[in-house]
């Protein structure tokens, strides 16, 4: 299985040491949340992964990647990104995109959704979204994530909204330039002490499930709100 690896990364910006011997492994086709306090280095790490910051420590499929190859393999999107419809190569998709989103007066939400859809169509190995979902409604968010999963694209979603992590396979916590954990979502969300130490809240349904379980009102964790209501009031 192809893996994205960052190996023994040391990185400083002027006099600030940002990463000291950082190691990270991300499996291909996985959906990952990258969470952490502000200024922990999330965006810097993302820029290293996509090659905007040059280093020799990024490996994909056990080969060192340079900026050139990274450019085709990794797409990085943040709120200021403006991907153009002209980058789409399939005519049908291009026409559809043009009809859905008018050229002028695009809202940030529309531009973000458009960016993601264009990126998915370009079929990168890895897609990095830097705080992009915060302006997109949760129902659309869910559909987009399912589409990314269907297309087998590796996703790194940089966010401070823990609710997004429910849709992801793994949570990576980055704090002060150090990887605190990189594990399956559900196992990270069970570690209350770890989350508290890193000032991360629990997603609403998990928090509610834990509390209801404590009072014996439900037996197991429930993520879907409709199911939860039906379970409590049978």
């Amino acid at each position, binding site marked *: 299985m192809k893996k994205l690896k960052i190996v023994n990364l040391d990185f400083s*910006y002027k006099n600030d040491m940002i990463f000291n011997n950082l190691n990270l492994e991300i499996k291909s086709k996985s959906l990952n949340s990258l969470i*952490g*306090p*502000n*200024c922990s280095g999330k*965006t810097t790490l993302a820029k290293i992964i996509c090659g905007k910051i040059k280093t020799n420590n990024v490996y994909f499929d056990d080969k060192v990647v340079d900026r050139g190859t990274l450019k085709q393999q990794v797409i990085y999107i943040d709120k*200021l990104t403006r991907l153009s419809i002209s980058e789409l190569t399939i005519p049908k998709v291009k026409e559809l995109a043009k009809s859905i989103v008018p050229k002028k*007066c*695009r*809202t*940030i*939400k529309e531009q973000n959704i458009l960016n993601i859809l264009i990126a998915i169509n370009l079929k990168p190995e890895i897609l990095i979204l830097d*705080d992009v979902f*915060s*302006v997109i*409604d*949760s*129902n659309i968010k869910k559909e987009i994530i399912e589409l990314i999963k269907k297309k087998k694209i590796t996703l790194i979603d940089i*966010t*401070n909204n823990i*609710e997004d992590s429910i849709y992801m396979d793994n949570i990576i916590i980055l704090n002060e330039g150090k990887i605190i954990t990189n594990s399956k979502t559900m196992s990270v969300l069970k570690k209350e002490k770890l989350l508290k130490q890193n*000032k*991360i*809240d629990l997603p*609403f*349904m998990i*928090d*509610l499930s834990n*509390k*209801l379980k404590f*009072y014996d*009102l439900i037996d197991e964790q429930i993520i879907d*709100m*409709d199911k*939860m*209501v*039906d379970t*409590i*009031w049978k």
Partner: protein
Amino acid sequence: MEVISNSYINDKKYENCLKIKDNCVNCIIDYGNIRDIIINNRKYILLKDISKCFKTSSLEKEIKYYKKYINKELIQNAIDLFKFDENFYKKNIKTMSSSELRLSYMFLNLLFNKDIVILDDITSNLDKDNIKKLMIILKELKKQNKTIIIITNDVEFIHKVADNIIVVKDEVICQGDKYDVFVNYDLNVIPNVIQFSKKVKEKKEIKIGYRDQITDLMKDIYRFAK
């Protein structure tokens, strides 16, 4: 809480509809594309890229730039409130992270000492500590009798701070306090804690009450489930 009349969005007049209440936190949920707001004949254009509102290259230089127009007390008050690290004032704005930019922008707002403060998409990507800081700053602004207008779709944050909520898409869809807007209208996204109570009412016809926090919601569920 008086109502400021003559409120416009994107040059469309909403005099009878858009009610910005003074001395409180107004939150505008924008389903469209607000580019500017006119209040009392003054136009406020929303900057999507905050870094463009800085005139100099660091906070220290910004303070020097505005020093002639701002009294020392305000500057000291802002410094005390934000508790930035000493080195932060010298940091180059181009190298600031998104959260640092936002907080710096809030800092400048405090210095400007305008009666109306407009904040666009202020919370996205802020961590727990910074959101707490933001809430303290909003409280301080209210104390100074300012009118705050926050444009955001972050309903969880709105639920924590809003005194008045206005939902807009090309025209005013609805407005009122949080229990009115979130409960009585069919919005795309509402706070989880309210959505849960709404679902219980819709599905089981049980009124468990609309709460601010999950701990209060738990008490209601416990009461009505037994």
